[in-house]
Structure formats: C-alpha cells, structure tokens
C-alpha cells in the first residue's frame, strides 16, 4: 500500500477522509444542499449510459457466454445456448495450443514494450540535445507515423517485406554476398515475429517519444545545471534526476503500451493476410478465430476472459498506480 501511495501527495483525499464524515448520516439531503446534487449527476449521465450500454454490458454478456455453449446452431435459431459451467475454461486451460499462444503473446509483449519504451525514452532524451529545427522535424515525422492507422502501417510493412517485390529484400540483396531475392519472411517464425515486432515498435515509439519529450520539458533546468556543476555525469543526472521526475509518466505510457501490445491483433492479422498460421497466433487473434472462424463463440469468450484476467493479474499493481497518478490533486 505505502509503495502505491508514495508517488503523489494526495493524502488528504485518500481513504475518504472528509467524505467519511458525511457518509454515515443522511447523505442525500445534505448533498443536495451543498452541491445541488443533481447537476453533477446530470453531467455524468450521458457518458455513464454509453459506457454501461456499449462497453459494460458487452463485457458482462461475454462473461455469461463463456459459461454457455454457443454454437452456430444456437446463433441461427436464437435459442438460449445450454449452460455448461466451467467446461469451456477447463477445455481452454488444458489445451497445450492455448498455453503456447499465451507464452508467445507474453514474450512478444515483454520484448516489444521494452524496446519501445527504451527507444522512445532515448529518442526523447536525444531530442533535447539537438537544435529546435531538428526537433520540430522529428516531431512532425513521428506525428505522421503515430497517426497512421494500424491497418495502413501493417499494409505498408506487408508490402515492404513482400517476398517478390518487397523493398526490404531489395535492400538486403544489395549487400555484398547476400542473396535475399524472393526471401520469404514468414517461413521462419523468428523472422516473422521480428517483422511484427519491428512494425509494432516502429508504430509505437512516436507516441512514447513525443509524450516523454513533452514530459522532459517539465524537468527543471536549474536542477540539471546544478548537478553538472557538482560534477555529476550525464548518466548520474539521468538516473537520479530525470528518471525520478519522469517516473509517473513512464508508468502511464508503459502500462498503456503493455495493454495495447498484449491485445495485438490487426498487425498480425494483416501481415498474415487474415489467416495467421498457428505460430503467428496471439491471444487476440486466437480468441477471434475460435469464435468467428470456428463458430465456437463460447470458447472464444472464455479465451478472452482468461486473457483479461491474465493481464490484470500481472498488471494490476501498475494499472492501480496509473489510475492513482491520474487522480493527483
């Protein structure tokens, strides 16, 4: 607990200090007097309704579906699918293929997030050292990549790594003594995953670099100058000044990157032409192909539920921290 609390100074608000005093008695009349209670509610209602109906309810439905056995027959006839309890879950969890997919997705997430965050941070730091013009150019170039729809970025990479006409093969082939004509990048899973990782990192770094660069502007210059005068090496000022100040921001962007990359779908889907081979399945594509490709809707739901539980299990600490940073008064 104390660790989670430390990053920000929000003690007064925390375990409901002042609120607690008000709650036990008669809440409603008092609230109305003080804040004319209905207006705040009215302002929040549209957002609440939309999220509850289109995000909350589907999630609950999916949870229910994962305990049933919905197949094509039930889908067409509209009958309520039979209740099967935890059958779908035992089926998924005892399946070796599923665990292979889990391992692959986790490995991909760890590698891609590490590269993206370290790369993004380095670029943000480098950008502080160059002239304004260069910095502006960099920001604009990265903005374009950030704004590129995932689908479009994936299409571009698909074409660049095309075995016959891809520009990557063309360039590698130019190296002396290397024959990369008609080289196919997706025969070997390691190579295929490097392409996917390269795509995700390429598309992910701009957001990280731009955000962290903006965060770096908040590091007081005097502090860094003072440290330099006192003989601190650049490495020391990075470790002891810049990183602690950036920590909340790094936590947020890293957590977001993990959530996004763990749900990798479009990139793998497009690069494999909508038919990912078993060695290119991630949890998202696996759940989708089971549900829609094989018409095992309940199994797909169970996989999706397990995916979220896995992610929450690993990330809960960071997600909590991220939310709390967002709560800073």
């Amino acid at each position, binding site marked *: 607990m104390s660790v989670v609390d430390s990053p920000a100074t929000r003690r007064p608000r925390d375990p409901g200090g002042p*609120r607690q005093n008000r709650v036990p008695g008669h809440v409603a009349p008092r609230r109305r007097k003080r804040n004319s209670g209905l207006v*705040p509610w009215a302002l929040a209602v*549209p957002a609440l309704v*939309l999220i509850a109906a289109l995000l909350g309810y589907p999630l609950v439905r999916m949870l229910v579906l994962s305990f049933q056995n919905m197949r094509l027959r039930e889908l067409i006839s509209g009958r309520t699918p039979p209740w099967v309890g935890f059958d779908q879950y035992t089926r998924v969890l005892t399946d070796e293929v599923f665990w292979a997919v889990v391992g692959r997705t986790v490995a991909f997430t760890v590698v891609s997030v590490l590269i993206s965050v370290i790369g993004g941070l380095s670029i943000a730091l480098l950008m502080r050292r*160059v002239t304004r013009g260069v910095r502006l150019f960099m920001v604009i170039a990265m903005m374009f990549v950030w704004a590129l*729809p995932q689908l479009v970025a994936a299409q*571009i990479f698909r074409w*660049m790594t095309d075995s016959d006409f891809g520009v990557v093969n063309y360039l590698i082939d130019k190296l002396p003594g290397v024959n990369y004509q008609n080289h196919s990048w997706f025969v070997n899973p390691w190579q295929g995953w490097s392409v996917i990782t390269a795509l995700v990192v390429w598309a992910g770094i701009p957001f990280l670099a731009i955000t962290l660069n903006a965060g770096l502007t908040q590091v007081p210059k005097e502090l860094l100058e003072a440290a330099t005068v006192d003989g601190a090496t650049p490495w020391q000022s990075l470790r002891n000044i810049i990183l602690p100040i950036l920590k909340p921001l790094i936590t947020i962007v890293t957590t977001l990157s993990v959530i996004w990359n763990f749900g990798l779908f479009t990139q793998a889907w497009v690069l494999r032409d909508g038919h990912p081979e078993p060695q290119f399945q991630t949890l998202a594509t696996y759940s989708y192909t089971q549900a829609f490709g094989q018409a095992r809707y309940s199994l797909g739901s169970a996989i999706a539920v397990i995916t979220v539980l896995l992610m929450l299990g690993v990330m809960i600490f960071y997600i909590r921290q991220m939310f709390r*940073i967002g709560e800073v008064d």
Partner: protein
Amino acid sequence: MTTITKPPATKTSSAGRRPDEKRDLKIATGMSHVALVAWAVITAGPLLWVLLASFKSNTEIFLGKPFALPNQFSFDTYINAWSDAHIGRYFLNSVFVVLISTAGTMLFGAMAAYVLARYKFPGNRAIYYLFVSGLAFPTFMALAPLFYILKGLGLLGSFTGLILVYIAYSLPFTIFFLAAFFKSLPYEIEEAATVDGASHVRKFFQIMMPMARSGLVSITIFNIVGQWNQYLLPVVIMSGPGADQKLLLTQGIAQISVSAGYQAEWSTLFAALVLTILPMIIVYAIFQRQIQAGLTAGAVK
C-alpha cells in the same frame, strides 16, 4: 571572507575541466544528431516509399526498382482510387463519423471528467474507476456481444451505431486524462463564479472549458487519431444489408488489398494509403504547438 576565497577555487577547477568537457559535449551532440537522423530515416522511409509508389503505375511497381522515380507524376492513381475503388465515398464516411463521434466524446467526456474531478459526492470514486477500468480491456473482447446488442437495437450497419460505439470506446481514456487535467486547474476562479451566482452549467461551459483548452485540444487530437485508425470496430458494426455504401476508409483499403491478389491495382492501394494520412496532416498543421505542449500537462505536474 570565505565567500571571496571560494569563487577562484571553483573557477580554476572548472577552467581545468572545460576543454575536455566541451569536446565530450560536441561528440555527444554529434552522436545525437547521427542517431536522430538514422531514426528519422527509419521513421519517414516507409512513408516516403509509399508516397513514391502511389504515383507509379502498376507495372512500374513490379519493375523491381523501388526507389526509382515514377515515369511521370500524374494523379491518375488517385483519381482511380477516389472514384473507381470508391475510396472517395469511404473517405467522406470516415470524416463524417470521426467528426461527430469526436465531438460527442469531447462533450460527454469533459462533462463527466469535470464532475468527477471537481465535485465530491458518494460514489464519485466508484464511478471514476468504472470509467477508467474500460482502459484495461482490449477492444476485441467485446466484439461478439457488441454485435448482438447493436443488432437488437437495429443499429447494425448504421452510422448512429458506429458513432455511439466510438464514443463509448474513447470515453475511458478521455475521462482519465481530462479528470487529471481539471484537477490541476485553480479553484479560485470557479469559487469566485459561484459567489457571483453562476450556475453549474454556466461554470462548466464558460469558465472550466476555456481554462482547460490546452488539455481539451490535445485529447481531441488523440481521439481523432484513435477513431480515424479504427478498423476492427467498423468491420464488425458496418455489416449487414446496405452496409457496403457506408464502409469506412480503413475497410475500403482492406477491401482493395484482400479482394484481388496480384491482379489488383496496387498503385490504387498506395494512393489510398496516402489518402488516409492526408487529414492527419491538416490536423497537425493546425494544432502542432498544442499537441506538444498539452499532451502531458495534466499527467506530469
């Protein structure tokens, strides 16, 4: 006395170190430039390659000289893409949907974030966490149930349905970000307005919204980008009878590339790819400064 004796000492030490340090700094700056140029090539390279390919004819693309300039710069491929491949219609569909849903997201999101950040009422935290926990769920999870819900409401294959879904899926991040931003704003002005008898609604629109402008602008851009990029949601929602007139740009692109193997007009595809970036160029041109300044203002302070 001590104050007088000290300065020379530091001066000599720093003077002794200076040339060395300067050289180090120069090397470091030089290295940073080299590294950044390399990164710039990696970043911009693929985009430039697409731009180049979009002006080429189909045969030129398959000629095996990816960096050769096209024979002639004509906009034929773009005209083809715009009308023959229906990219024009899909483009306008996308613009329409994103405009309305971003506006809706900002309005509802700002209202909810304002309330959560500035009012104390029982359940405040619970609602905040409810909103924000939406961030943690990957979109694909809710696809199948979403399909049935929209089908049940008769909103499948309609812009209304898609816009509502876009808004719902953009709200968690918007509220998360804006709530932090609203909290960082000073309370005094709002209090003064209350004393002067301003209503809640008026305070919100005339005081808080203008004060939060930089945050609103950056999160607006974030939402425009995010919604423009959607692919999976429209694929699921824009289905059913009559939906083929209402496809979005990303779907149109997928259609070109999936439908027809090597017989397809690939130059058309590249032209369409370039067209997807176009609106973003306009958005950035307008908001470049705010994007940089505002993106972290709420989170870091």
